[in-house]
């Protein structure tokens, strides 16, 4: 066997790009997206050019995931692989170019989401880690830790009002009751996250505190991480996500 080419296994060692990659993790209802949005507003107000990317959002894979979910034909392995494909595509198109150009990239969920979720769905932990070995190690990874009851209360009381089928792990046959299924499934994810926090040294945030308190802490941590960072930008104002133009493919309706 040819020995592994270590330079191609980028996860687990700091990247050498001039930009910064900041990611947030946590279960649904942990408030991580709110915190990331507030961080983005602040960074932009400081004059930074910020790029944002979120889990499972590439055009190519979204359609397929939707189709698979609709026909309920996804297995733990295809579910995992589809998300890895989406991630690879976003890494290549949305994360690497700005990082190489020296800009700041914010990611709502990262490979750790797959490590946690896919393990709970029953795929091999070592396999899913190998799957993502090409990804870039973030400069900062925040984990928003929240008790399951707080998350449920936020989701039910909030704008969404109900749980989504796969978020609640309804495909796993845990319970017919969506809330109960969500509780069991997401509790298992929480305990996976606890292991991941130790394994990868994520920065743990107490997600039960007030929004602005958490944000103050987050900004303090980010300020420290950006100490030696030299912001870069072109001559134009803010352009959101247009640096990569697709060609020859009509937009799905």
């Amino acid at each position, binding site marked *: 066997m040819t020995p592994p080419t270590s330079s191609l296994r980028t996860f687990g060692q700091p990247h050498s790009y001039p930009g910064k990659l900041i990611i947030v993790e946590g279960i649904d209802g942990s408030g991580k997206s709110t915190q990331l949005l507030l961080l983005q507003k602040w960074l932009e107000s400081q004059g930074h050019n910020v790029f944002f990317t979120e889990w499972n959002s590439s055009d190519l894979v979204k359609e397929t995931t939707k189709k698979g979910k609709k026909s309920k034909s996804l297995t733990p392995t295809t579910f995992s692989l589809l998300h890895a*494909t989406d991630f690879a595509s976003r890494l290549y198109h949305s994360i690497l170019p700005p990082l190489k150009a020296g800009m700041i990239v914010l990611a709502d969920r990262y490979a750790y989401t797959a490590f946690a979720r896919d393990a709970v769905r029953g795929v091999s932990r070592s396999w899913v880690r*190998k799957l993502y070995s090409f990804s870039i190690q973030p400069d900062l990874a925040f984990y928003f830790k929240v008790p399951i009851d707080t998350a449920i209360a936020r989701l039910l009381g909030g704008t969404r009002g109900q749980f989504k089928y796969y978020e609640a792990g309804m495909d796993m046959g845990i319970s017919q009751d969506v809330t109960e299924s969500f509780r069991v499934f997401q509790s298992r994810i929480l305990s996976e996250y606890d292991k991941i926090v130790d394994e990868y040294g994520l920065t743990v945030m107490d997600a039960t505190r007030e929004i602005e308190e958490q944000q103050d802490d987050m900004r303090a941590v980010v300020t420290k991480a950006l100490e030696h960072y030299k912001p870069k930008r072109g001559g134009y104002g803010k352009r959101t996500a247009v640096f990569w133009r697709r060609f020859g493919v009509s937009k799905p309706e």
Partner: protein
Amino acid sequence: MAKGRQYFGDGLAYLNPSDLKGKLIVIEGTDGVGRSTHIELLQEWLEVQGYGVITTGWTRSSLMSRTIDTAKEGNILDHWSLSLLYATDFADRLEHQIIPALRSGFIVLADRYIYTAFARATVRSGDPTWIRDVFGFAIVPDLVCYLRIDADTLALRVLESNGMNYWESGMDLRLGTDLYDSFKKYQTLMIEEFDKMAEEFKFEVVDARKSLEEIQEFLRAKIQPLLRSAHSRGLARVPAGAADSATEGS
């Protein structure tokens, strides 16, 4: 006694492969070597003898085939995504098609298998390890027959049939200035990869420049020993009527 069924690497943690009693036979080889013709002939040969046969082909899953086509139209560029799309397609077929068929005692004829993905990814990235890890959930086949051809003959055959396409020419790798140069260089690299794997994974190699009859005879000779042992272990037999109608159809 044949040893039990195995996964390549980290397998499907939720599925024990030991009760998969059918046979998994893989035909590998680049486009233009006549894989599909040989698979058709093999299927007929096996069905006439009363064996249940299903065929499965690369990128033909119901979940993924359209997505892969879209990707190849230029919506995707990086080799990770392409490899992972192939892996998703393969996983879908493995779990919904190949494994259920093997469990019921069918013979599965696979038109290309993970080795195609290994070769394409390794030629593109130089790293043979990651792609093998990704496909760790694949089942080790009972037999891999590789229809080997040289790049010169292949170029002639492809030009005479469908012509060279962008991906089969490896144009994404910018190996040459035009389709023909790129095709030759890319296919030469692919053949080198396959030659290495032929040793590593013990492929049965047949020269694809031989006549159709000679190649078919070779394939049948390699498959025959698997059948005898499989037969005594309760392989599914298709009723005589079904085999007859399959014969009439061609």
